[in-house]
């Protein structure tokens, strides 16, 4: 379990990092927290000729307040997100999911963006960022572009990032007033990848009718899976028992699990139903916070 031979690069600027990536496109990997990459290297599952360590790049370690929400740059550790009162306050969903991500020692090193770029379909963070409708800022020698989370995740361990591109960070918009979120996961052990997980947010009007809804599942597809049929069924509905049951049925129906030694596809499908119902029950039970919109947008 020793990595194969590679050349180590430690660029000091984004431009230098992009230059190295461009020069060795297809044969280079970006190293941030290393919590997924290093095991892959040690198993020799991945044997890149070049490793581009971005830990010395400036200005990528602190979350930044934007006009519409927050920007979380590439070097923000998962533990820092979890412990940031501002981020946890703005996105309780992120904090809830982070408690299920591996263990504190791993979150101390692992970055939010690293997990997104790694794109394990059973991982929590890609699912949550999709549920929050995040946008990924990507740099390349051709300039910067922004990709919606839903378009970013292409397949298991595969993203929209080109070989010469670098993920700079993710933008998350503040949630509208009247929005509640919830995250439920079931894993074999604490800190394991999810057998299935569901992240959800719903916005309700003053009468309790759902006006906006987003449900995304982990571990039951090749990417974070939008549960669109479940979402559509909830729009215009109140979160009563029959609405929850219908959404759970719809979610199980649209899940695309595969079986392995740990759990059958059928078991995971049932889990999606259970977790969807639990997410919606949490949301139904919560008193929607009505934060004045202007306070968020002008903060």
């Amino acid at each position, binding site marked *: 379990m020793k990595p194969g031979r590679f050349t180590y690069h430690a660029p000091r600027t984004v431009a230098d990092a992009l230059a190295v990536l461009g020069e060795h496109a297809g044969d280079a990997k970006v190293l941030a927290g290393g919590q997924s990459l290093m095991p892959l290297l040690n198993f020799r599952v991945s044997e890149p000729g070049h490793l581009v360590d971005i830990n010395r790049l400036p200005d990528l370690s602190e979350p930044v307040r934007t006009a519409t929400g927050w920007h979380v740059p590439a070097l923000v550790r998962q533990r820092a997100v979890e412990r940031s009162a501002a981020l946890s306050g703005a996105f309780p969903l992120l904090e809830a999911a982070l408690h299920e991500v591996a263990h504190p020692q791993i979150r101390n090193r692992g970055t939010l963006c690293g997990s997104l770029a790694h794109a394990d379909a059973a991982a929590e963070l890609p699912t949550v960022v999709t549920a929050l409708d995040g946008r990924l800022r990507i740099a390349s020698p051709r300039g910067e572009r922004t990709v919606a989370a839903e378009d970013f995740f292409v397949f298991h361990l595969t993203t929209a990032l080109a070989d010469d591109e670098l993920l700079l960070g993710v933008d998350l918009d503040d949630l509208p007033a009247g929005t509640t979120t919830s995250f439920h996961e079931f894993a074999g052990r604490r800190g394991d990848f999810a057998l299935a997980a569901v992240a959800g947010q719903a916005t309700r009007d003053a009468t309790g009718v759902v006006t906006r809804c987003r449900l995304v599942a982990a571990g039951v597809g090749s990417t974070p899976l939008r549960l669109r049929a479940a979402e559509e069924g909830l729009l215009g509905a109140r979160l009563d028992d029959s609405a929850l049951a219908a959404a759970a049925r719809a979610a199980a129906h649209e899940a695309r699990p595969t079986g392995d030694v*740990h759990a*059958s596809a059928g*078991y995971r499908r049932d889990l999606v139903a259970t977790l969807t119902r639990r997410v919606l029950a949490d949301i139904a039970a919560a008193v929607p916070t009505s934060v004045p919109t202007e306070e968020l947008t002008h903060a």
Partner: protein
Amino acid sequence: MTSTETRPSTMIGRSVLRREDRRLLTGAATYLDDLELPGCYEAAFVRSPHAAARIVSIDTSAAAAMPGVIGVWTGADLPEIAKGIPPKVVHPQLRDVPRMPLPADFVKFVGEPVAVVVATSRYVAEDALDLVEVEYDVLPAVSSTGAALADGAPLIHEGADDNVAVHVVQTAGDPAAAMAAAPHRLRERFSVTRGGGHSMETRGVAARFDPTTEQLVVWDTTQSPHYVRNTLAHLYDMPEDGIRVVAPPDVGGGFGPKAQFYGEEAVIPWVARLLRNPVKWIEDRRENFVATMMERTQVHDVEIGFDDDGHILAIRNVFEHDQGAYCAGLQVPMITLSTLPGQYRIPNIHTELIACYTNMVPTSSVRGAGRPQAVVAMERMVDRAAEHLGMDPVEFRRRNLVQADEFPYRVGLTFRDGSPLTYDSGNFPLLMDETLAAFDYSGERERQTAARAEGRLVGIGVAAYVEGCGLGPYEGSRYRLLNDGTILVTLAAAPQGQGYETVYAQIAADALGMDMDLIRVTTGDTGRIPFGQGTFASRNTATAGPATLQAGDEMRGKILQVAEAMLKTSAASLEIHGDRVSVADDPSRSVTLREIAGAANVGKHGITLAPGILPGLETTVYFAPERAAYASGTHAVAVEIDPETGAIDVLRYVIGHDCGNVMNPMLVDGQVLGGFAHGIGNAMYEEPFYDETGQPQSTSYLDYSLPSSMEVPPVELVHIHTPSPLNPLGAKGAGEGGTIPVPAAIANAVEDALRPFGARITSLPITPPKIVDALSTDDLDGTGPWHG
């Protein structure tokens, strides 16, 4: 012994803090990979990717030509060590098949080593592995006992009629007649899977050959250095004194698999000898998953016969044991065979083993060593029988327990050493009472009833066991008075975290009547003590312990004899205080231990010893127990099941434990709690998966669910102490009792929780998907599928 018995014990029985802890907690421990061996080469092994194949050819030329590679050897290149590694525990009917250090012709499991690369670093060695070209002719493989025993199964070993390694039947009474006549009979089939040892430090070997002394020094993370030395002497055809095997004082866990001997342990010292240069191999975790022995699966077909009053009349258990590709030893299934009756008085017993070969890594003992499986077979059927009679399962157990006045109790079976299986001591009814009192059994039953009324699935499980421990043949302890006036106690057995340096200093302090501070304990070095067996089977406190006690007693006698001569007084009036022996009623007349060492050990060249001075103060005692001492335990657990996810929440867990007299209660608690973590893994998490072609499916901790501290629930401990009459310390083993009944207890509790639905648990470990499956089985009595 008389003087020891009259001297009050002052250190034995105290929770002395471990001497080892400072270096362990400050990162100063020395593990095998920390040894400084200047210029040491590092090795890596080419391993078979196939579960069964003929080796057509191996081309090592490209690897050997790589810069930094010192050499590459296949089995064919090392004919001198091409000998079968003898199995550890055998049986007259065992059909043994030679297990070669590096097989030259056939591979029988994924991970079997076929070549070794020695290089300037492990990095280079691993790069070179990819360049070794092995051509295999892949053969059909077998990866379960069912497949191995099926008609027309591929033969794992050529020239055999079938894949059976050994078939053993033991009976007591007339089980066939008793079963036929029993008013009630119940039968079930249980599959019980156990995992590996998963010690934090993997296996490792380093070796250096000194051509000037012609001595081969081998550092090995083994539990049994003398066993390794003896095996190497046999394989190398060398006198055993030419080989010194040292287990470093800090070994990061053993748990059974490190008590076995592996091909890598034969190859590394041999190439170090060939190269006249130190060579080191540290197993990595991926190798550990495929090449280190594990325990895996037994399948039990068990039938119980009982009467209306809940008396067990007969038990019949036929089980299949997966021996793996070779028989490294029969200890595990032989232990299962004799552990079946447990704490119960059963007049008619049929216990039958069918051990078979499969195309998977050989199996070995893992903490618990065959006992958890037997306890599942027995204790699950006890619960079923109680259910059948509508009787409380604890009441059913009480009606069948061997009583306190029945010891020594002859079970009616034969122990694996050929002697009648006999429990030396115990008090099973008291153990049950104390455990259930701490558990508040009746209160838990009331809470269960209330929970069920709310629709919650709460269940209670109890499981009892006996553990034959403190096994022979012997263990030794050597004392020497050092020239500085301190005592060195040398044990043959090697520790892997058990605290030997502390516990044996406690025993020695009491035996010598000296302060612990003047006593140092050293372990696991064949160069320091000629004979030994090792650390396994919860045996050392009951074997090395008495040896240390008796040797200490002899040593005290020698010290006092020399002091008597030096002080010209009678030994009867002498006392040892601190580093000084003095006359009891005249403390001004004294000699120090250093002076005694000077007189007796150092002496003066050419000068005759004064009268009464013994030359060289040392003593060695080997203690050989008459037979195994029996520890016992009773576990009680309450669980709640989430019917939607199948999650098991352990609400309460109480362990009642009897390991006889305790040397250091804190260390015993640590052993029981650590064992419990293994038990939870066996009950709910750990499973080494192989597919039908024999490919391992769980080769990292992503896929192998080793429980972490987050998965191990809080546990309450209850101890009783029935001393063993078989050794002067009254000690029994404590290393495995925390593990043994956990799968049975959890399975009993889960099935109890599911009882309203009649769902059955027959496969361990019990995972959430299995519970959901059990709940949704169509043949539930009219309840229909629970979910969906």
